[in-house]
C-alpha cells in the first residue's frame, strides 16, 4: 500500500512537471519581456509620380507608307511638327509629383501578322528633356530598340516633358506588309533602375 502511494506521488509530481514544461513551451514567447518600457516615433514620407503621354504618342508611332527600298532613317510622322520643328511625341511629368524621373523604353518584335520582322536594331530612337529641332537628336541616333528596357533621359524634373524621336531603317530584302508592335515607356523615380 505504501509502495503504491509512493508510485502515485512520483507520478503526480512527474505529471505536474510535464504540465509545467508544456506551459513554458507554449507560453514562452509571451512571458519573456523587457523591463524597460519604450515608445516609438513614426513618420511616413510619401512619394508620388504621375506621367502622361502626349496626344500624338497616345495615337501611336507611325512611319507611314514606305515604297522605295532600301531606306535609312525614316522619320516617324510626328518627329518634326511642321510649324515649329518640335517632336509631338513626349511624356509629361505632372507638377503633382515629388520626384524627378528616369525614363526607359523597350519594344516587342516589329512584325507583320504573317511573321515577317524588322529587327529592332533598325528601329532607333532618341530622347531628351528639351524639345527643339536638334533635341532629341536627329538621325543617325545610335540607340536601337530592344526587348529589354534601355535607359534614356535621367533626372527629368517635375513639371517637365521628356521628348522622343523615332527612326526606321528598312533593308532591300524586307518583305512588304504592315508592321506593328508595342513600345513601352516607363518612368522610375530618379536613381532607380527599370529592370
Amino acid at each position, binding site marked *: *500500500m505504501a509502495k*503504491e502511494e509512493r*508510485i*502515485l506521488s512520483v*507520478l*503526480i509530481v*512527474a*505529471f505536474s512537471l*510535464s*504540465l509545467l*514544461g*508544456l506551459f513554458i*513551451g*507554449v507560453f514562452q*514567447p509571451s512571458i519573456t519581456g523587457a523591463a524597460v518600457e519604450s515608445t516609438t516615433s513614426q513618420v*511616413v*514620407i*510619401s*512619394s*508620388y*509620380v*504621375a*506621367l*502622361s*503621354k*502626349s*496626344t500624338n*504618342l*497616345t*495615337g*501611336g*508611332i*507611325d*512611319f507611314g507608307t514606305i515604297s522605295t527600298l532600301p531606306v535609312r532613317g525614316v522619320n*516617324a510622322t510626328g518627329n518634326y511638327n511642321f510649324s515649329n520643328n518640335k517632336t509631338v511625341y513626349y*511624356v*509629361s511629368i*505632372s*507638377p*503633382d*509629383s515629388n520626384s524627378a524621373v528616369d525614363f526607359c523604353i523597350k*519594344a516587342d518584335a*516589329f512584325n507583320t501578322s504573317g511573321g515577317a520582322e524588322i529587327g529592332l536594331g533598325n528601329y532607333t530612337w532618341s530622347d531628351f528633356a528639351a524639345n527643339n529641332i536638334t533635341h532629341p537628336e536627329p538621325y543617325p541616333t545610335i540607340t536601337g530598340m530592344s526587348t529589354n528596357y534601355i535607359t534614356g533621359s535621367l533626372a527629368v524634373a517635375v513639371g517637365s516633358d521628356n521628348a522622343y524621336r*523615332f527612326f526606321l531603317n528598312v533593308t532591300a530584302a524586307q518583305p512588304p506588309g*504592315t*508592321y*506593328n*508592335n*508595342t*513600345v*513601352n*515607356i*516607363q*518612368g*522610375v*523615380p530618379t536613381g*532607380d533602375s*527599370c529592370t
Partner: protein
Amino acid sequence: MNTKLFALLLLLCVVLAFPVAARKGVGIVWNTETEIVKEGTNYCIEYGIYNPWDEDVNALLSVSEEFKPIVNNEESEPRLVEGGTKHDRAVPINLCFDIDNVYQQDCLFGDFFCQQKCDVQPVTHEGKIVVMEETTGSAGMGSSTTLGVSVPLKLKVQCNAHPRDWTLAYLALAILLLILIIIVLLRRRKNKA
C-alpha cells in the same frame, strides 16, 4: 460691323488652330520601398493610384516577375481613376503577399522538435510595382504605345530564432503520466473494495 465680323472670324480661326488637347495619365503614391516581413505570414502594402490630368483613365496595378510567385491578390482588374484626382485623393489599392517559410529549421524527427538558429543569410525579394494606363488596342499601323510608372519594393524576410520546441514531448509525457495515474487510482480503489 465688318470689324466685329472680322474679329469674330479671327477668334474662331485662333480657337480652331490651337485646339485644347485633353490629356490623361497615371500616377502612383507609395509610402515604402523596403518592408520587413515575417516568414509564413500574409503581408499587405497599400498603394495609391491617381490621375491629375484632364480625362478619366483605367489604370492597372501590377507586379514585376520577381513578385509573381508570392503575390496572392494582385489587383488585376483595371480601376477607373477620374481626371483631376490629385495625389492626396489617390484611389487606395492593397497588394498582399504570401511570405513562405524560407529558412530551413533544424528538426529531430520530421517536422517535430525543431529549432531555428537563424545563422544563414537573410532572404530578400526585390522587384517593382507598376501602374499602367490600360491599353486600348494598337495604333493600326506602326507602334502602339504604353506608359507606366514603376516603383521599387524590397521585402526582407525576417527569421524568427527559437530554441528547440519540446512541446509535443511534454504533451505526450503528460498524457502518458495521466493514464498511469488513472490506472494506479483504479487499482487502489479495486484493492480497497
